[in-house]
Structure formats: C-alpha cells, structure tokens
C-alpha cells in the first residue's frame, strides 16, 4: 500500500490528533468515583476539559496542579501535593489519577515519588493513586488512553482466584457503543468486567440532586480481580508494544489475551460474538441472529448506493481500522486512511484488509486509484490535498473534518472524538449489528443526499441540448 512519506515535517496545519494527557483523562472518567489531577500549568487542563466537555455535553471536572513560574523553576512538588489535598476535599474520590504534561515532564517531575511520599505523609498508604506519565509531545491521545488503562490495572490488579468472568478492554468509543457492547455481553450470557466504562459517567441521565462525580464506571474491586478472569478480550488490534493493557494482564497474571477489532461492521461483530461463544459454548441467541439478519438486509438494500462512495477515513487507529473494514465490506472505497499518530500497526492491518477486498477491483475513480493511501501523522492539510487528488466524495471521522466540507465540499459523516459542531457525540451509535446498521445508514444517506440533491440539474446540463421540439 502506498504511504504518504512523512519525513520530518516541521509544521502541522490543523491537527487531526490531540495530546497524550487528554486521552488519559477518559479512562479515569470510566472508573467508579475517580478523579484526575494534571500536573502542569492551569491552561492545559482547562483546555482539555473544554474539549472533552463540548463533545460529551457533560461537566468534566479535572484538577490541575496549576504550576506557575516558581513551581517550574524549583519543582512542582508542593503544588502537586496541595492539588491532591484540595481535590480530595472537594470531591472525596475513591481513586485519583495523576497525569503529567509537557511542562512537568520537561522539568523532570517524578510523580511516582511525589505520589508515594504524599500518601505516606497523609497516612493514606492504601489509597489508590495512579500515576501516568503523559508528556503531550510524547504520543497522541490514543496512546494516552491505553496507557492510562494499563496503569490503572498495574496499580489495582491483584492475584485473584479464578471467578469465571472475562475482561473486556475497550478503546475510546462513544458511551452509546459501550452500552451496546455491554448489551451484547449480557445477551450472550457472559459475565464480564468492562474497562473503562464511561457509558454512565460521560452520558449521565438527568438526575436530581446533582452529583459532582456521576455514578457509574468500573468498580475498583472488579478491576482488582481482573487477573482472576478466564480471558481478556481486548479491542486493540492496533495497539503498539508497551501500550497494551491486555498484554500486561497476560504477562503478569497469565490471563489469555485475545485481541480483536472493535465490533463495528458485520465481520468485526461476528468476530466478537464468535469469541464470546467460545467462552459460553452456548448457541447465539435468536435476538442477535435477527439483528445480524437485519444488518445483512440493510447491506443488500444499500449496496449499489454505497458503491459510489469514495471516502477518506480519519481518527484514532482502532476506530479507523473498524470503519475501514465496514466501508470495504459494503463496497465503499476508502481512498485514504489517516491518523494523527504513527499508527505503525494500522498500516499492515489495512494492507491485509485491502488485499482481501479490493485487490483487483477496477479503478472507477478515473485513474485516481483504488486502494487507500495511508496517511500516518496526518494533519488536515495533507488530508485535504489527498482527498482532492483521489476524488473523495465522503469523509468519515471527528468534527475536525468540517474543514474538508468547508474547503472541498466533501460531506462528513461524524464519528469518533471529538464532535464539537453537532450535539450527541456521546450518543453516536455504531457498535454491534444494530449499531453497524445505523452507521451504514448514515453513510448511505449521506451518499444519497449528494446524489439526489441536484441530480435533475446535473443531468439536464449534461445531456439536454437545444430546444424542446426539434421540428418547431
């Protein structure tokens, strides 16, 4: 597969990805009664809160150690400790995550040591303080996310007697998709621990009175006992070495690890359900068979419309991979696949996918190419250029893609994080057979909208020559 050469680029024009700590905040929001403190200057945490809050339409409280000039020069230990004190006073959390920023990392703050010392000083030795080194310049938010999950496990997991549950580890997906995954697990009769689970906390129902830390999230005890699970299903085929929480459980506690793609798309959902079936040994319940049948029916109904789709897909690797698969199995051609990070594994995976589906497809794009180009470390400038060159008529990804709509007239199917210019980012539903069906509808309808709006005009212009009646 072609790959856009990213030599050492000096300037990023309109970024596609975010920095590491923002990704690390999210898993903590999916752990019961937990809070996060970011060690660094005030601005970073405020910006990240705003960014997350606008997507989920939920209050997102995140503390900052508010490093100032003095803290930067002489070390931020006092700030960090005071920050922890105050966070505890206001929120009474059961767990605190401490993340770093570029600043804290650059001045060499040792959050592990400071954290240990803090707990000792406050006589809170057993309090779960989870440190995650997340220099913004280190990796993208996707790695921040999985590293936080891994560190939560590393801090809490204990050797536990086997309890028959399975571990389900998920990447950054919408609360709606988390709920769907839980529903599938329940329908399949599987007992599980889902980590992280922000399906309730970041898409909280309206309740009264208000709670500063919304209820929900994976329970601490369930996390502690994850080493006693039969197996780990991790939706993390694109995870890089060192960022895989499932690997950690396997290496430390011998919990067998099965890496699978996100259950978005028919094949990917099949893979997920088949894995669950291996655990239970029971047949797949009727209700799921029907849902699958309905998806298939939808795929057939829409297949000709979908064939007109030439899409550019962008966002976090795991999601991008699942979306590319969904497009390919429906005849929508991904002409470019982009991610803001390095996405080394993603490239090989896409290659295999492409070979299976589109290896010898005719080039219907007027020589603009069949298979996707892969754009690692992409920004919207490169994406825009590539989309134009390869004749994309559809974009699938987060709301940054509005840029492609604005500049190139390419319609955007909103998916992933963040969604800032529409409501309901937290409710975007795409997982399982049912979710895939509505995801596919969104794609097809966007293509139809384009085809049907103005087709009379287009055809008139293209074919109608001269007067109405040649004889008059």
């Amino acid at each position, binding site marked *: 597969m072609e790959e856009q050469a990213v030599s050492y680029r*000096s*300037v*990023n*024009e*309109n*970024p596609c*990805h*975010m*920095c590491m*700590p923002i990704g690390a905040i999210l898993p903590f929001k999916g752990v019961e*009664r937990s809070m996060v*403190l970011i060690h660094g*200057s*005030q*601005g*970073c945490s*405020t*910006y*990240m*809160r705003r*960014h997350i*809050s606008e997507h989920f339409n939920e*209050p*997102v*409280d995140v*503390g*900052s*150690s*508010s490093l*100032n*000039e003095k803290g930067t020069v002489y070390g931020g230990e006092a*700030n960090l400790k*005071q*920050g*922890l004190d*105050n*966070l*505890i*006073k*206001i929120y*009474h*959390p*059961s767990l605190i995550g401490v993340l770093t*920023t*570029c*600043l804290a990392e*650059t001045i060499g703050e040792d959050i592990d040591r400071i954290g240990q010392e803090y707990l000792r000083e406050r006589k*809170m030795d057993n*309090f779960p303080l989870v440190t995650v080194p997340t*220099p*913004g*310049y*280190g990796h*993208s938010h996707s790695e921040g996310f999985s590293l936080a999950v891994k560190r939560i496990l590393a801090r809490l997991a204990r050797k536990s007697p086997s309890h028959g549950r399975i571990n389900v580890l998920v990447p950054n997906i919408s609360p709606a998709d988390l709920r769907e995954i839980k529903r599938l697990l329940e329908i399949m009769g599987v007992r599980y621990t889902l980590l992280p689970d922000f399906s309730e906390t970041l898409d909280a129902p*309206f*309740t*009264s009175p*208000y709670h*500063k830390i919304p209820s929900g999230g994976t329970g601490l005890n369930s996390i502690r006992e994850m080493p006693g699970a039969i197996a780990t299903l991790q939706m993390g085929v694109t995870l890089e070495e060192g960022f895989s929480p499932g690997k950690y459980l396997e290496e430390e506690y011998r919990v067998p690890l099965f890496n699978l793609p996100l259950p978005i798309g028919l094949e990917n959902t099949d893979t997920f359900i088949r894995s669950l079936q291996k655990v239970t040994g029971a047949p797949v319940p009727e209700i799921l068979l029907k849902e699958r049948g309905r998806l298939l029916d939808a795929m057939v109904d829409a297949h000709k419309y979908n064939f007109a789709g030439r899409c550019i897909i962008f966002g976090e690797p795991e999601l991008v991979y699942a979306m590319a698969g969904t497009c390919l199995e429906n005849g929508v051609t991904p002409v470019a696949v982009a991610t803001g990070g390095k996405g080394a594994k993603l490239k090989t995976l896409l290659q295999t996918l492409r070979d299976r589906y589109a290896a010898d497809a005719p080039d219907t794009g007027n020589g603009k190419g069949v298979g996707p180009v892969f754009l690692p470390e992409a920004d919207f400038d490169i994406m825009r250029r590539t989309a134009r060159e390869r004749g994309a008529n559809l974009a699938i990804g987060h709301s*940054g893609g509005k840029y492609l709509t604005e500049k190139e007239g390419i319609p955007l199917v909103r998916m992933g994080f963040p969604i800032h210019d529409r409501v309901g980012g937290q409710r975007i539903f795409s997982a399982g057979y049912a979710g895939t069906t509505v995801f596919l509808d969104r794609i097809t309808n966007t293509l139809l909208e384009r085809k049907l709006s103005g087709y009379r005009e287009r055809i008139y212009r293209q074919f109608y020559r001269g007067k109405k009646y040649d004889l008059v």
Partner: protein
Amino acid sequence: MRAGKETGMPIAERFESIGRKGRQKKTLRCGADSLAGSVSQRACVYCGARVVLNPVTDAVHLVHGPIGCAVYTWDIRGSLSSDAELYRSSFSTDLKERDVVFGGEEKLTRAIDQLVEKYHPPVVFVYSTCIVGVIGDDLEAVCKSASRRHAIEVIPVESTGFSGNKADGYRAACDVLMRVIASGQREREEAGESGSSSRDELAINYLGDFNLAGEAWIIRDYFREIGIPVNTVFTGDSTYESIRGAGRARLNIMQCAGSMNYLAGKMEEQFGIPCLQVSFVGLTDTADSLRRVAAFLGDEKICWRAEELIARESEKVKPLIREYRRKMKGKKAAIYVGGGFKAISLVRQFGELGIDVVMVGTQTGRKEEYETLFDLASEGTVILDDANPSELEKFMVEEGADLLVGGVKERPLAYKLGVAFIDHNHDRKHPLSGFTGAVNFAGEVYTTLFSPVWKFTRGGEVWENGGYSYGRASC
C-alpha cells in the same frame, strides 16, 4: 476507601476570593494564581494572547509547542472576517520528544519558512508555549532572522503558559500589537506624514471587540451613520495593514477593558491618543456610549445624528424588550464570565430586563472591576473570583438561580442542575452587541428560561429510585 469528608463548603484558601454584597468590605482577593487542585475554570497566558491576536485575519498564527496547545484552539472562536481566512487555521510546530531534548529552533525556522512560502502572509505571529519557556528556544532571534530573510514582520508572542494567567496573555498580545502599530507609525513619520496633523480629526479606533458574530460590523455601522469613521478595530476583522494604521486615529474607544486597557495606555503614552471606555452591551450602555463618543468629538452635527440613531433604534427595539421584561421580571440570574467588563455590562443588562443577579464572578476580573460590581450588585449578591465548578454549583443552588451566563465549560453544569443558560463566550454565533444584540440577548434569555423542557425536569411524574430522582422530586 474514601478520603476527606462531605462539607459542601469551599476550601479555606478560597474564602478571601468569595464575598457577599453588604456583608463585608468591597474587595476580593483577585489576580492571584489559581489554587492547585481547586479545578479553576481559567485558561493560560497563551489563551489570553490568542484571544486577542487571533482575529487578525491575514496573519499566520503559528504555535511553537507541542500539538495540544494548537489543537485545542483551532478555529474555536466566532470572529468573522470580511476577507482573509488564514487566521482560522491552527499552525503548530508539533514539538516531539527529540525537539524537547535538542531544542526546537531549527524546526521553528523551517516551519516559518514553509508557511511564508506557501501563504505569503504580511505577518507571522509565533506564540510561545510552556515548554518553549523551559527548553529555552530563543524565539526573538529566530523571528528576527526569519523576518530579515522574508522581509516581513515575524513577531514572537511571549505567551509561555505558566508565567501568569490569561490577563498576562492579553498584555503579551498588546505588546505585539504595539510593535505593529509603532512600525506603521515610524514608516509614516519617515514619509513625512507624522504627528497629529496626519490624523483624521474624527476617526476613532475601536478597542476590545473581536467581531464575534459580526459585532464589530454592527458598531462600525452605527458610527458610519453618525459620521464617525472607524479606523482600526482591535482586533475584530483586522489586518496587518489596518493595525499599522492605528496611529492615525484621534480617539480610542475601548469596550473590553480587561484585554485592551494596557494597549490603550501605551497608545496614549506614545501617540497621545486618549481613550474612552464604552460598552455596547445592552440598550442603556449602547445609547450612552454613542452619546459620549459623539460629545467627545464635539461636533454638533454628529451629536445630533447620534440622537437620531438612538431614537430610531430604541423605538424599534424597546417594545420588544418591554415585552420580554414583562415575562422575565423577578427571575434570578448567575453570571460567571472571563473578564470584569463583561460581568459589569451583564449586571446592567439584566437590570434592564428586570432580572435579579444573585451571583456574579469572573476568571480574571481586576480590583476596580470588582469594586464596580460590589457597587452595582443588589444586597446579598455573591461575588467571586476564579471560581470552580463546585462553588458555582453551591451558590447557584443556594441562591436559587434560574439562569447562568457563562462559557462552554459552565454550560453542562448549569444544564445538569436544571438551570437555564446563556452562552456568552467567544464561539457564539449570534451578535449580542448594540441594539440588535440587546434584542438577541433578551430573546436568548427568554428562549432558555421559558423552554418547555424545564417543566419536565422540575416536576411532573417522577419515579424514585435509590435516592435518585430522574426528574425533580420537589415541586
């Protein structure tokens, strides 16, 4: 295991930043660094600088730093442009680990070169971020040499995030603006058109309007109608050239004082341009400001035309406002916004609508502004600086606020509390300035206060479940 215990009280270190009208001296602690762990709503120096400079439409805004600082500020503001669109892009040097270790100067140099070559901007603003302040890149030197190479201005913005707060960022931006103004002034002097003689006797600069949803256009139109040319707007829909020409005005009028006070002072000091504080928020303020500017310029015809405009526009909107007022009288509002100027204007504007303000706070209000707020507020009003979500929650609930005015981060909190909300931030999509804006504002207040959704959150059938109620139990 849980730490701490439920108190519902703010943390002790915050007491001095919270006051109540009538119960204490008229001052608050303000302008201090945010308290660690208190979950401040404030942003950073860079944010402040970006707010002020971002509306300069034909500039390249290059953020020298890691990706986050740039991505979180990409096209998030509603400043409109009548021409160039370059300002809506977020350029970043996207510093990586090796840059942090070996320094980012070379990368920055290449970034500037590439951007200048591609976009041919008249000016490049290079924003410094936190780690740049630490790794010690010499921005000034890199910019200077780039400037020479490309024969355009490449200006570093001293916006290292940790060295103060948003207000310091305003100042950093004003320094940059001053630099541009001064260079324009110098050039005119060299061309022999210097001094007050080169000034247009009536032209004004309009400071502290970022042309959100076209607000600066609305105000410019008012002045055009009464015969006062608006020379440069700082910085809504401005360009490098327009800023360079700012020295030609006779008078500065200033709306957002928090961000522009410093620039106004500098311009008075260096070019002898006096400054008048104005406000185009609300009917009374708008009319009053137009009158004062007209009077200052001392031209009878202008004063007369101003009166005409005020009469005509007021006539148009007053019945509407009166109608809204009738509906909304007696409701209670809470205010939490960025700067003091905005807070003050809002208190007045709520007054016009018959709405009582029960809480008012800002992220970066200044001492004088808090004094004004204490003067304006009614007895018992809670006044607070650099509040956190838990304080906002506490006082909104205790004071029974029906409505909160705030920014993006405050909105979901208000909604979760079942409180109506007004977006008064930089990404708004409808104008809130001038006569038109006053009606929009009243309309928005009405829309959010009287939406039928509150009927369901406040009452009706409710199912109790383990202490929660999905909806509200007491009504």
